[in-house]
């Protein structure tokens, strides 16, 4: 099966993300990359945990002063839901329904943007209300680096999904772009996996003390 082949609903394979050698390689390579990303985030988490609440003097805000449960909860819900919507997108991809896939991807992007907006608001809030800055303490540096790395991943993921959508909006699905969509959705889920640990380890544990 060649990647360029024009396919119909009937000839569309069961696993379009793995139906050519290139696709198989991309699929596996991306999973391996995620394995490496796991270690990358583990390093950042480890650094954060080692530097949590490490501030130069008593007038700096600590984790338990900063975080706000409702805000984190809303952000979490947005990102979790966006994970489900990208599952829907892949469901329609497997059923060779390009229109619906695009629709669900669009919703995913919107939810992701909402999450990002909340994060920007949150950071801004910390800086202005609590003077909790990237440069003010080791705790600040570690916090913004860990959460910011995640935010940068969200941003990159949004750009990636958008680029794929725009590029393939007119021409629909084929075996060349289906693996690309699939891999982008894996990336998006991975971002959610990382967030599960961030809201647990950084926010919830931060509030517990």
């Amino acid at each position: 099966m060649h990647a360029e082949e024009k396919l119909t609903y009937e000839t569309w394979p069961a696993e379009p993300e793995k139906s050519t050698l290139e696709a198989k390689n991309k699929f596996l390579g991306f999973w391996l990359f995620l394995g490496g990303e796991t270690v990358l985030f583990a390093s950042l988490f480890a650094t954060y945990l080692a530097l949590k609440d490490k501030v130069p003097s008593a007038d700096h805000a600590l984790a338990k002063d900063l975080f706000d449960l409702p805000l984190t909860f809303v952000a979490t819900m947005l990102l979790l839901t966006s994970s489900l919507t990208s599952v829907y997108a892949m469901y329609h991809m497997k059923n060779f329904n390009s229109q619906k896939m695009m629709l669900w991807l669009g919703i995913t992007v919107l939810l992701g943007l909402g999450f990002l907006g909340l994060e920007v608001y949150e950071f801004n809030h910390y800086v202005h209300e609590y003077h909790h800055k990237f440069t003010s303490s080791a705790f600040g540096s570690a916090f913004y680096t860990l959460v910011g790395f995640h935010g940068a991943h969200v941003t990159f993921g949004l750009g990636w999904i958008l680029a794929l959508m725009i590029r393939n909006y007119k021409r629909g699905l084929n075996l060349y772009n289906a693996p690309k969509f699939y891999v982008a959705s894996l990336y998006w889920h991975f971002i959610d996996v990382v967030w599960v640990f961030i809201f647990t380890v950084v926010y919830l544990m931060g509030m517990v003390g």
Partner: protein
Amino acid sequence: MANQQINSGNPRVDLEYRRKKNAEEMRYQVVSFTLMIFLTLVAFAAVAIEGFTAWFTVPFIILLAFVQVVFQLFYFMHMSHKGHEAPSLFLFSGLGFGLVMVLAFMTIVWW
């Protein structure tokens, strides 16, 4: 590489079968999503409700996080499907090594 679907000889039937299977799987996805939301709610509640000690809350919410991540990996990311042997090997090796690292940073980084 040929299609890896089950061949009954009748393309119509195969297609129907696949479609049903996809739809069924999508239902599972929704169920696991509901569970994930539930777990998240429990985790947030455990922190919001006063009266639990940190010694209970922290291990509890970490456990919930791991359960939730398993849902993400196995259902949303389809790791429960065939052909994910190498991905699982590498992802869980990475996770295991990452945990060793976190443990080290929580125990032998001080001053």
